[in-house]
């Protein structure tokens, strides 16, 4: 979680300094979801991510050097500078892509589930998606499809209460998004997405069910988007008091206190971790800054495996 937080803070700062191009959507405040879910997965399990995907990548085992380089658009980045923040992927650790299309990852995740089912392995596929995405046609089609074929897929709704400028209740006609599970005859549960242990427990149960051929689950993890929709968002659609209030409930602080209370870590150990992470982030930035820009002509590669005869 802390690694995600620090990565995001660095990304925010770099963006505000004008060092990063494009759009950046920060995961600050939502880290417990990625961390809790990914702790239940193996490396060869799959996830599909969203436009707010840095946290998923890091928690699934992505390399922050390659991530940072991609944010900079450098040739050493995960996508050789072709994707950027919204399209980071690392198929080798099972991240089948962030996605700039709201709801775009859901059909891909069920496809991974379909592949797993036919291959008869015990992998699972996780689809992360936002509260706004729960109103897309892709959501409905994907959940029905996954249920009908009892696919090993877990749907993780990150309900951060906003879809860019729109409050969840202004656009979403159901109190708990998990109630929509009824429409697909699958288990649905709403949990505190700021409590990493609660996330872990719910995800574990769902992932085990999926591995045991018990079919999909819809988990709604309630959280809050502490930052603007994207870095630079004027955020005129909500009160600062609301934001401040949720800063008091942010997941990392809560979990740190628990770890100290339970005497699992002490403050010194936490400081050490933080220091190590700070260094890793600095390393990542250095790696990215020192990496070369792509050559223009590299734009004409990577579309097809075999591009014989193709006119660019």
């Amino acid at each position, binding site marked *: 979680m802390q690694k995600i937080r620090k990565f995001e803070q660095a990304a925010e700062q770099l963006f505000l300094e004008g060092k990063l191009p494009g759009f950046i959507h920060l995961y600050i405040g939502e880290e417990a979801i990625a961390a809790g879910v990914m702790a239940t997965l193996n490396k060869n399990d799959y996830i599909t991510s969203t436009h707010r995907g840095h946290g998923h990548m890091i928690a699934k085992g992505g390399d922050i050097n390659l991530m940072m380089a991609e944010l900079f*658009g450098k040739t050493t980045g995960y996508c050789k500078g072709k994707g950027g923040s919204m399209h980071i992927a690392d198929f080798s650790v099972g991240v089948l892509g962030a996605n700039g299309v709201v709801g775009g990852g859901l059909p891909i995740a069920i496809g991974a589930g379909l592949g797993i089912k036919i291959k008869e392995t015990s992998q699972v596929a996780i689809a992360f998606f936002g509260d706004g995405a729960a*109103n897309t046609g892709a959501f409905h089609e994907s959940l029905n499809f996954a249920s009908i074929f009892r696919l090993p897929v877990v749907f993780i709704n990150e309900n951060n209460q906003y879809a860019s400028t*729109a409050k969840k209740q202004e656009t979403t006609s159901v109190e708990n998004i998990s109630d929509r599970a009824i429409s697909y005859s699958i288990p649905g549960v709403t949990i505190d997405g700021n409590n990493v242990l609660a996330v872990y427990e719910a995800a574990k149960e769902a992932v085990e069910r999926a591995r045991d051929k018990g079919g999909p689950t819809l988990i709604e993890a309630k959280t809050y988007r502490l930052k603007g929709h994207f870095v630079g968002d004027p955020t005129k659609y909500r009160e600062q008091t609301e934001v401040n209030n949720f800063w008091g409930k942010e997941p990392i602080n809560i979990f740190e206190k628990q770890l100290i209370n339970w005497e699992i870590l002490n403050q010194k150990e936490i400081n050490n971790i933080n220091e190590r992470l700070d260094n890793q982030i600095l390393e990542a930035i250095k790696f990215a800054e020192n990496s070369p820009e792509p050559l223009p002509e590299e734009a004409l590669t990577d579309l097809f495996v075999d591009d014989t005869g193709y006119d*660019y």
Partner: protein
Amino acid sequence: MKTITFSEALGEAILEEMQRDDTIFTYGEDIAKQGGIFGAYKSLLGKFPNRIFDTPISEEAIYGSALGAALVGMRPMVEFHFSDFLFTGIQSITLQIEKIRYMTGGQGKLHLLLRGPDGVSNSAAAQHSESIETIFMHIPGIKIIIPSTPYDIKGMIKTSLRSDDPIICFEHKSLYSQKGEVPEEEYLIPLGKADIKKEGKDITVVTISRMVHESLKAANELVKDGIDLEIIDLRTLLPWDKETVIKSVQKTNRLIIAHETWRRAGWGAEIASTIQEEAFDSLDAPIIRIGAYNVPMPFSSVLQNFVTPDKQNIITAAKKMMGEM
């Protein structure tokens, strides 16, 4: 005359028409609370609370509902957020809006307007940078406007909001903040009429949107090479103003078509094919088409700039055409 931005001109058009006609209403994602991503709705903030509102992320429902609302007598104007997301609801356009009047033997008037940003800007990458106007030129049933200046957007949006046919309007992201002169008094611009943004005698350049400005820059630079471009801004892509183009080609005997969308099977191919069919003997050289390389839009600005056409492509093409390279 006053000097205002493209966004402001668009906002003025919407405001004036909504005041004039209370069957006009407008909706989409993220438009009502902040005045729209690119500021087009700023002039509407606080006005018409029932006639401007935000929707769920449900593009098929959004576009399809515009059709339903038109059929019951309203004049919906829908923002499609980013042209890329037309794809998440495109059946409502290509299979419904574009076909229903024809399929029903001419019943009903589909006075609806879909509009929003398109084009390349600032490393928005592959899913937020497309220009897909060609699709709508190919599939019959919706008119296409693509204005390039504050003057044009205001006059054409106003005309569109009075039209009885469905219209889609693409606004290049880079244009919203551009300024230009707009008359104080009301005016309308007819659809289907190109605008010659610069007269010239050597080469006709047919273009739209951001590429109009790139063409004008190219024309400026080419002066020193003694090459005189005539720049035709189609403004309306469907129906496009064939007469104006043919007349120009008959004068210059040379044609370049410049668009930002992918070169392959882009609308430039339609113009080129038509002109070689209808003005074959006027052509002194092969028609040159300029468009993006045929790849998704990459993120890095180095790559993005390489893939996206600009004035330099036009300069190079013009020189080649005049035998100077």
